[in-house]
């Protein structure tokens, strides 16, 4: 299976429903500083169930909801959906398209859905773990390379130790 599309709605700087179709191979995202590129990366972390709002550069989860000063009413929640093409049946769900959705409200409470049906975060994590080997370690976030440059030899050993 492969990820076919990301959909953002009210998530950080993406106020309106925004669809980003994904290549089976290499998808590249460009644009000026501050336009929202890293916010898309944050959206991926978010929908895959990451538990630290700080990793997504937010003080608390409710900060992930679009906040604009433009007079229009702010959305009440932030939502990200990740669509998978499951024609090869690799994801143990009985449908050709599998959609994972995560919504967070103004209280910072998250709701997860699988094909629109409400599930627990653990259900999502189990599903992704089995069919997609998706973890936090396949992401290199902005600044990670610089962080590793500043690391000393002890930190490096600890990182390898954690992996072991």
């Amino acid at each position, binding site marked *: 299976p492969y990820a076919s599309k990301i959909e953002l709605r009210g998530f950080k700087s993406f106020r309106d429903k925004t669809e980003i179709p994904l290549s089976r191979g290499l*998808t590249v995202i*460009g644009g*000026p500083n501050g336009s929202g590129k*890293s916010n898309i990366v944050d959206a991926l972390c978010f929908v895959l169930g990451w538990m630290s709002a700080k990793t997504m550069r937010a003080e608390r989860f409710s900060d992930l909801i679009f906040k604009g000063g433009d007079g229009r009413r702010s959305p009440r929640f932030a939502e990200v959906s990740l669509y998978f093409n499951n024609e090869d049946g690799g994801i143990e769900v009985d449908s050709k398209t599998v959609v994972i959705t995560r919504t967070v409200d103004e209280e910072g409470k998250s709701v997860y859905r699988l094909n629109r049906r409400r599930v627990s975060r653990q259900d999502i994590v189990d599903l992704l773990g089995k069919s997609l080997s998706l973890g936090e*370690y396949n*992401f290199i976030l*902005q600044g990670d*390379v610089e962080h590793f440059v500043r*690391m000393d030899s002890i930190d490096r050993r600890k990182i390898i130790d954690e992996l072991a």
Partner: protein
Amino acid sequence: KKDAFMRTFEEVSRNFGEIFRELSPGGEARLVLECESNPFEGGVEIEARPGGKEIRRVESMSGGEKSLTALAFILALQKMRSASLYVFDEIDAHLDDEKVPRVARLIKKYSQNSQVIVVTLKDSIMSVADRLFGVTMKDGVSGIVSLELAEYGGD
């Protein structure tokens, strides 16, 4: 628990050497335990010999060389777990115009077996995209534009 560490260490070191060789032509790099008898008493040093130079620790390399070495190390750690999706956000900022296309080629290679999403400011990464998107912002609201990849110049 030393055995588990040593097995992981050996494999990361091997991955690291291979990836570094691909990113730095004619270059070699390896991980070295500061305290071989008891790894947990020391750290892990990185020794590298970028193409044509003598071997030295990463701490005495140039800014861009450190960045390349750190990238190779992160990718070596990632290689320990197979993944079907990779996301890289601006991993090329400190690299010169000869290194960036090498990173592009490596990312392209990854994308043959896995899905890869890359955020970049650099043209030579954008030019190898299968799909290319531009992010725009107007009045504090982001939008997406699908960009056509046109072939310029000779092939």
